[in-house]
């Protein structure tokens, strides 16, 4: 028995306009999705070139869900995106050269070479850098919402977790806590159908993960993660509700992880037909078609966006590569914060 609401796809332009998205916004969403896709594709090249050490993860297939939710975040809202949510960082406005600098373990990356991959964030953009332990950031996200509640601020906290990590106790404690205290939280479950090599039926036994919201006294919604506008609509609703004191919502976005778990994994265990099926509804392609059909996006506009993004990424990569390696002499710095450090944008 499912208790979650299954969200409709987004249809008409009118519906979208009523959601408050104008022409520019719609193109902006497209630009963010393209940027996300291309940043991650560059990462693959860098990895093959031996410039990215360790492992390398992408969110291919999840651009719609990530960008859709991030677009619904208000300026003063905060979030804890994970390893499939590069699109959140992009949408919030991180400069791509900084992501590349992180990938390349450079001194000017957000973590200065101390951490890799998308384990980064810019606190000026309301984001908090993820840890590997999944989904340990979720209670942190709930704590942000708690702060908003305590201070009676109209801000919302967005916390991500995956279909696999949904099995961890942290998710339960987070949702229960937020439900009991009616915190302004949007729980964002990126259900990409696999957890590394583990399929959903070995991870959970309910129909939708969004069904679990009922266990915590709030609403659950399942939405097609390849439908960026439907995701936006649901996230916006949830955020508005949270801002108005209506408590948390759990949004489950469904899409397929279109690559292996990480670069070393060829995903042999995912049936080929599944890849084909989901490739046919690639979020970027789907949205491109929608834009062409609904706002008449031309080849010209499209090319303009793509080449703009490509140029941006070329420049970004150049800048990132020019950044020095971190200085080993700094290794010991900053294990402990000073009083001055708590004067960050986050901490104010």
């Amino acid at each position, binding site marked *: 028995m499912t208790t979650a609401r299954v969200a409709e796809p987004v249809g008409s332009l009118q519906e979208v306009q009523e959601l408050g998205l104008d022409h520019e916004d719609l193109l902006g969403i497209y630009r963010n999705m393209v940027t996300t896709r291309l940043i991650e594709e560059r990462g693959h090249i860098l990895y093959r070139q031996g410039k990215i050490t360790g492992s390398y993860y992408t969110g291919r297939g999840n651009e719609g869900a990530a960008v859709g939710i991030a677009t619904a975040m208000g300026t003063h809202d905060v979030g804890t995106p994970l390893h499939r949510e590069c699109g959140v960082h992009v949408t919030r406005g991180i400069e791509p050269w900084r992501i590349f600098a992180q990938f390349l373990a450079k001194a000017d990356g957000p973590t200065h070479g101390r951490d890799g991959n998308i384990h980064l964030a810019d606190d000026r953009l309301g984001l908090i850098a993820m840890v590997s332990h999944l989904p340990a950031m979720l209670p942190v996200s709930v704590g942000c919402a708690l702060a908003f509640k305590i201070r009676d601020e109209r801000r919302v906290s967005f916390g991500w977790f995956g279909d696999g990590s949904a099995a961890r106790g942290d998710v339960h404690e987070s949702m229960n806590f937020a439900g009991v205290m009616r915190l302004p939280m949007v729980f964002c479950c990126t259900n990409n159908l696999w957890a590394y090599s583990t399929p959903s039926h070995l991870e959970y036994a309910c129909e939708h993960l969004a069904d679990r919201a009922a266990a915590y006294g709030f609403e659950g919604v399942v939405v097609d993660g390849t439908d960026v506008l439907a995701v936006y609509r649901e996230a916006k609703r949830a955020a508005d509700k949270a801002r108005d004191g209506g408590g948390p919502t759990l949004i489950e976005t469904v899409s397929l992880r279109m690559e292996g778990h990480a670069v070393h994994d060829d995903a042999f265990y995912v049936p080929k037909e599944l890849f084909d099926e989901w490739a046919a509804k690639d979020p970027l392609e789907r949205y491109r078609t929608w834009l062409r059909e609904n706002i008449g996006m031309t080849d010209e506009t499209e090319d303009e966006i793509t080449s703009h993004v490509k140029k941006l990424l070329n420049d970004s990569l150049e800048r990132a590569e020019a950044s020095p390696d971190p200085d080993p002499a700094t290794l010991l710095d900053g*294990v402990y914060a000073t009083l001055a450090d708590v004067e960050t944008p*986050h901490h104010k």
Partner: protein
Amino acid sequence: MAEKTYLQAISEGLRQQMRHDKRVFLIGEDIGVYGGAFKVTLGFQEEFGPWRVIDAPLSETAIVGGSTGAAIMGLRPVAEMQFSDFVSCAYDHLVTIAAKQRWRAGTPIPIVLRLPSGGGFSGGPFHSQNPESTFAHIPGLKVVCPATPEDAKGLIIAAIEDPNPVLFFEHKHLYRRIKGEVPDERYVTPIGEARIHQAGEDITIITWGAMVHTATEAAAEVPELSVEIIDLRTILPWDKEAVLASVRKTSKALVLHEDTRTGGFGGEIAATIGEEAFEHLDAPVRRVTAPDTPVPFAPVLEKAFIPQVADVAAALRSLAAY
């Protein structure tokens, strides 16, 4: 200045800091209406309201992880674990996020965990532990273990003002048993500075928490020896210089803690003395600790487990005779 119990001192420090800094809030199980299992926060919810003294669900991970989030958003959370034993349920959060976020991502995590710890009252294996050594191994955390009412008050305030995650171990067996003069005003006792609890010339005892009092009694039992007792007060960071200075003077050292021996923080201290005061030592550095077992419930067993005055006195005599 008035005489207060260790518990009253902590309570007063918390209250004054909450009045002083509106960002401070408390969260924990049964700390509000009930005033906490030990009544440290009795009456706080009346004064500060339910959103600054939060009765949380039984969720150590959410409490500690949630405190981290609230801290990043600019608040100053003080979370209580009902017994320090239960901090094991928030271990992942502490070592994975709170300890590393500043170094790794530049995000300071100014949270305090209040951790009623220690044995001596038949609390059994899960209400008597001293888990400070475990956390003193984690770079990025601070670990504070006051022994006196005066320090307890000054250090809880220091812990809240510190921009880092601080584990504040309150020894339950001191709560109502130990009294002392405590200044009435708000004051800060610096984290990382040891205190010479008792000056002496012959042997240095390095200890903290409830064992400071055991050491004092033991020293009194061996009046022929002039014993210097160093109360570390904080064990991460710990005041190496104070310890080394004392040992260079006395040439003999005894490390005393209530936690179990193997891998306990006493090893770190003894190793450091051995490494950095090697030429000054006239005897091996001795450790007096609990044995490597869980904490027993039966009073007769607990007495055999927790270092007793007689054990320390015997170690002092043996060191003196070396």
